[in-house]
C-alpha cells in the first residue's frame, strides 16, 4: 500500500502529472477539538475518491480546501495556489456540489444555475447559455423552467451537479453525489461523473461512504480515519498488489494436492470439483504449488490472483489505520 508520506517526500517525480491537491501537514480544529490531524500528501489523480467512516473528516477536508474553515496549522495547495492566501483564485477554478440540500428558493432551475454561473464570473449572456448546456448535460433539459421547490430529491441532486459544473471548473468536489438517489438515478449520476472524468477537462474529488460509487468512478482513493490519512493509493495498483490470494482451476484428483498444500502451511478451500482457493504463506512461492501439482499428478489449467475489492482495501485500512502514515 502506497504511503502518502513517501509520496509527499517525492517532490515531482518524472512522468507524473503535477499535483492537483497538495496537503502540507494540514490540521483543522473546531473549538480546540482536532478534526483533521496533520494530513500530508500530493493527490494527482483525475478522479480521487475520498473515503472514510462517518465523522472521519471527509467533508471537513473539502470545506477546508474550499476555504470555509481556516486550517489550525499547516496548509494545502490546489493547482499550486495556497488555500490560506489565494482562496479567491482557487475558488474560481473549483466547482462544488454540497452534500446537503442547497438551493435558492423561488427560482426556476435555469435561473438558479445561471445565477451561480454569474457569481463564478461569467457574463450574463454566457452564463445563460452555459446554464442551458449544463442542464441538458445532467438530464434536466425538459425541467429547466420548473421552480426548484417543486423538484424531487433526485432532480435536486442533478441541479446541484449542474451548478457545480456550469462555469467549467478545473476541479470538482462532489460530496456524496448519490445520496438519496434510486438505482437508475444513481447509475446516471455515476455515468455523468465518469463522462466528466473522461473528458480530461476537469479533475474530480468524490467524497462518499458508498464504496461502490468510488469504485466505479475513481482511479485513486484517499481514506481518512479519525482525521488521519490512512491510505492514498491508485485503486488498480492496489487491487493487483495482493499476490497471496490465488484461484486455481485444475483437472485431476484434488485430494492429494489439497493435503500436500495444507502440509505446507497454506490455507486451501475447494469451491467446486475443479476449483480451489489458496492463500500462500510467508516463504511459499507459486512454483511450490506447481511442484506439488506435478508430484500429485494434478493439472493446473488456470492460476489467477484474486484482486482485492475496494471493500477489502477499505477494511484493511480501517484495521491498520491506527498505525498512521
Amino acid at each position, binding site marked *: 500500500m502506497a504511503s502518502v508520506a513517501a509520496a509527499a517526500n517525492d517532490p515531482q517525480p518524472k512522468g507524473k502529472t503535477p499535483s492537483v491537491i497538495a496537503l502540507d501537514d494540514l490540521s483543522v480544529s*473546531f*473549538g480546540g477539538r482536532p478534526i483533521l490531524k496533520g494530513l500530508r500528501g500530493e493527490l494527482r489523480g483525475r478522479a480521487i475518491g475520498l473515503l472514510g467512516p462517518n465523522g472521519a473528516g471527509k467533508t471537513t477536508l473539502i*470545506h477546508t480546501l*474550499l*476555504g*470555509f*474553515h481556516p486550517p489550525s496549522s499547516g496548509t494545502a495547495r490546489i493547482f499550486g495556489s495556497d488555500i490560506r492566501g489565494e482562496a*479567491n*483564485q482557487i*475558488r*474560481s477554478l*473549483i*466547482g*462544488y456540489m*454540497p452534500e*446537503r*440540500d*442547497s*438551493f*435558492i*428558493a*423561488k*427560482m426556476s432551475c435555469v*435561473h438558479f444555475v445561471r*445565477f*451561480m454561473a*454569474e*457569481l*463564478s*464570473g*461569467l*457574463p450574463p449572456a*454566457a452564463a445563460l447559455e*452555459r446554464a*442551458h*448546456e449544463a442542464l*441538458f*448535460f445532467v438530464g434536466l*433539459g425538459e425541467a429547466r423552467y420548473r421552480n426548484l421547490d417543486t423538484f424531487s430529491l433526485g432532480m435536486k441532486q442533478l441541479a446541484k451537479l449542474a*451548478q457545480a*459544473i456550469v*462555469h*467549467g471548473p*478545473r476541479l470538482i468536489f462532489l460530496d456524496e453525489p448519490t445520496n438519496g438517489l434510486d438505482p437508475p438515478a444513481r447509475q446516471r449520476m455515476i455515468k455523468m461523473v465518469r*463522462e*466528466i472524468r473522461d*473528458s480530461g*477537462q*476537469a479533475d474530480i474529488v468524490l467524497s462518499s461512504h458508498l464504496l461502490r460509487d468510488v469504485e466505479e468512478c475513481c482511479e485513486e482513493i484517499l481514506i481518512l480515519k479519525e482525521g488521519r490519512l490512512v491510505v492514498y493509493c491508485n485503486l488498480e495498483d492496489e487491487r493487483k498488489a495482493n499476490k497471496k490470494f490465488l484461484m486455481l482451476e485444475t483437472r485431476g484428483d484434488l485430494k492429494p494436492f489439497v493435503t500436500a498444500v495444507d502440509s505446507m502451511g497454506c490455507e486451501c478451500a475447494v469451491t467446486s470439483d475443479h476449483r480451489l482457493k489458496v492463500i500462500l504463506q510467508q516463504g511459499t512461492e507459486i512454483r511450490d504449488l506447481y511442484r506439488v501439482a506435478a508430484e500429485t499428478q494434478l493439472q493446473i489449467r488456470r492460476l489467477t490472483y484474486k484482486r482485492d475489492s475496494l471493500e477489502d482495501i477499505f477494511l484493511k485500512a480501517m484495521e491498520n489505520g491506527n498505525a498512521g502514515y
Partner: protein
Amino acid sequence: MPVIERAYREYQGLKSPEWSRFLIIPRHAYRDVFRSKLFTAYFALSFIFPLLCAILIYLHHNVNALAIMKLNVRDVLPIDAGFFEFYVIFQGITGFFLAMLVGPQQVSRDLTNNALPLYLCRPFSRTEYVVGKMSIVILLLSTITWAPGLLLFLFQSYLEGWSWFSENIWIASAIFLGSLVWILLLALLTQAISAWVKWSVGSRAALLGAFFIPTVFAGIVNQVFETRWGNIFSLYALISNVWAGLFGTFVRQTGQIQESRNGQILREVIMTEPPLWASWFMLFLICAACLWLLSRKVKAYEVVK
C-alpha cells in the same frame, strides 16, 4: 456549443470584473421582488410625494397659476431647508416600509435553504455577499429618497436661479447624506434581523419592534428621569436629530419643567437633547452591532461546538 451535444467543457471566455459581482445579487433579487403586485404598487406610490413636491416648487414660480388659484404658497410653504427636511423625513418613513417589505427575507431565505455554501464556494466573499444583499435595499431606497430629492433641489435651483443654488448647495449634501445614513441603517438592520429571524413575518415584526420598542422605552426614561437623554435609545429620535443637524434645525433645549407655588418657582428643569455627536455615535454603534450580528451568521457552515 449546441445543447444537444451534451458534453462537459471548460469555460474559456471572458469573465466579469470582480468589483462588480456583488451587483449580481440585487439584479436577480429584483426579478423576484417586482413579481409581487403589492410591492410594485407600493413602490409606485412612493413617487407620489416627490411628484407633489415638484408641483409645489413649480407653483412657487408660476405667478399666473398662483394668481388664478388666489394662493400665496410662497409665504405659506417656503422652499427652504425645512421643506427639504420634511421631504427627507416623509420619504424616509416611506422607505422604512419599503425596506420592511423587501429586506427581511433576503438572508433568511438563503440560510433556510443552505444556499450560503453555493455563494461562498465561488470567487465571492462574505463581504461581497453582505454588500450585495444590502444593495437590494440601498438601490431601491435611493430611487425614492435622495435621487428624487436631488432632482427636486436641481429643479428649484433651475427655477430660482444660480444665486439660490450657490447659497443653498449645502441642502443638497444634507439631502444626500441624511438619506444615505437612513438607508444604510435600514439596510444593515433588515439584513441583521433577516440573518437571525428566519420566519419572514417574525423578522418584519422584529424590524417594527426595533423602532417602536426602544422609542417607548426612551419615552419612559425621559418621563421618569425628567430628561431627554432617553432619546439615545430611540432610533427614531436619533435619526431625527441627525437630520435636524444636517438641515440646521437642531435645537438642544426642547422642553422645560417648572413647579411653582404662589408665583414662586420651586423647581425648574431644562430638558436638553443629547448632543449631535451622541446621536451620530449611537447610530455608528448600532451599525457596528448589525455588522457583528451578520458576521456571526453569514458563514458557509456553522460549526457546532
